[in-house]
């Protein structure tokens, strides 16, 4: 019974739930904002890397490599604690958003590049032979086909971004994990932490299942 009272204490959980839910809301806001910005950034970087003039393409490649190499926690601490020394002072939310977006953008760029490169050369040639401009070739022919290929890995990336939002608790952002540790301290009981873990799982399990389903569906070659 001690284990139940310690880790699954119902009254403690009920008491801490409002706090956990405000934390969840912050987590979702940060996750969605970072995912959307990372998608846009990633698409732009992928296109610059593949079709930009040489120097721009090189810069895009360096960007991708750097931000895939740096641990997000290190980047976050740099943004939050180091940037103020050069006068850039971001709130914990926007510091976390910046770090997550920069990293997600790098991964997303590689996903988009793989998706575009998977489109057969004949699709590009047919578009060009028809006189479509580069913009129309991408928007009407290449990207709609690439999107289907990149949806499973992009969803995977979304899961990672949402998970990585928990790192923001390190810079005192009141996200789900931060609220849970606070509630744990207040109640002197670890149940809120268990609650937070369960909420993360409930939030992300459907996405994980979705990726698995999409992957089998696309493997069957639905075009």
């Amino acid at each position, binding site marked *: 019974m001690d284990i139940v009272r310690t880790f699954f204490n119902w009254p403690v959980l009920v008491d801490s739930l409002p706090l956990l839910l405000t934390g969840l809301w912050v987590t979702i806001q940060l996750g969605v904002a970072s995912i959307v910005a990372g998608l846009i950034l990633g698409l732009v970087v992928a296109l610059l890397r593949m079709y930009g003039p040489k120097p721009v393409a090189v810069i895009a490649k360096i960007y991708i490599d750097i931000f895939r190499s740096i641990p997000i926690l290190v980047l976050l601490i740099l943004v939050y604690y180091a940037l103020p020394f050069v006068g850039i002072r971001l709130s914990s939310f926007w510091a976390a958003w910046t770090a997550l977006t920069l990293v997600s953008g790098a991964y997303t760029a590689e996903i988009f590049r793989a998706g575009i490169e998977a489109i*057969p050369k*004949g*699709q590009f*040639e*047919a578009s*060009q*032979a*028809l*006189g*479509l*401009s580069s913009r*129309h070739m991408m928007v*009407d*022919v290449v990207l*709609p*086909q690439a999107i*289907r290929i990149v949806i499973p890995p992009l969803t995977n990336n979304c899961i990672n971004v949402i998970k990585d939002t928990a790192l923001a608790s390190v810079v005192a952002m009141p996200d789900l994990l931060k609220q849970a540790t606070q509630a744990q301290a207040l109640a002197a009981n670890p149940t809120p932490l268990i609650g937070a873990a369960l909420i993360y799982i409930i939030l992300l399990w459907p996405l994980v299942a979705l990726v698995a389903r999409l992957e089998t569906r696309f493997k069957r070659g639905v*075009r």
Partner: protein
Amino acid sequence: MAPYISLKGVSKSYDKFLALDNVDLEVAAGEVVCIIGPSGSGKSTLVRCVNLLEQYGPGEITVGGIPVCAGKNLAAVRAEVGMVFQSFNLFPHLTVKRNVMLAPMRTRKLDEATADARAMALLKRVGIAEQADKYPGQLSGGQQQRVAIARTLAMEPKALLFDEPTSALDPEMVGEVLDVMRGLAHTGVTMIVVTHEMGFARQVADRVIVMDGGRIIEAGTPAEVFDRPSQQRTQDFLKAVLSH
């Protein structure tokens, strides 16, 4: 009269391999030219240079007097010159009708209704109007290639380039595609057809060109090339393809 398509001293090399070796060719407006020759002889490379799907050099290609080179002229050339590919290259995410409508709506700024009507007329012309709302993947190879021809015609090109249009087809579907091409010949559109269909070349071409090793080794009327070839290599090639 000035030729509609003109190649002057055109060469093209991949690394060390010379795919086109100083090719001269003039094609009059409305003329149907068939290019034959062994694989690797540069036939496809030649037609792909005409709309700059392949970069070439040295040499000069003009279409309707416009030099074919990268830059703002290129859009003008590509708008005039349609191409039909061996592998169809239809857009798999669009319906048959949308495949035909896309380019005119984007480059000629046709409105939806006009593009739709024109697409349906063209699909009727190639005999697949009833498949308009299907996706390319649901069609046979022969039907797909006919859609590809309709898609090209939707841009109202002055010239059509065919790059082995029947080579990827099952034998029983070759005829339906050749029939559509036969219907286009001598309607005013200039045609350059890279093909292995000797019967089609003999019957439809105004002029047959034989390529080997990146050069044009023989050119003439179908009767001249098929019945009285002057080059030993032409004779060998024809013997090889006509013997089976």
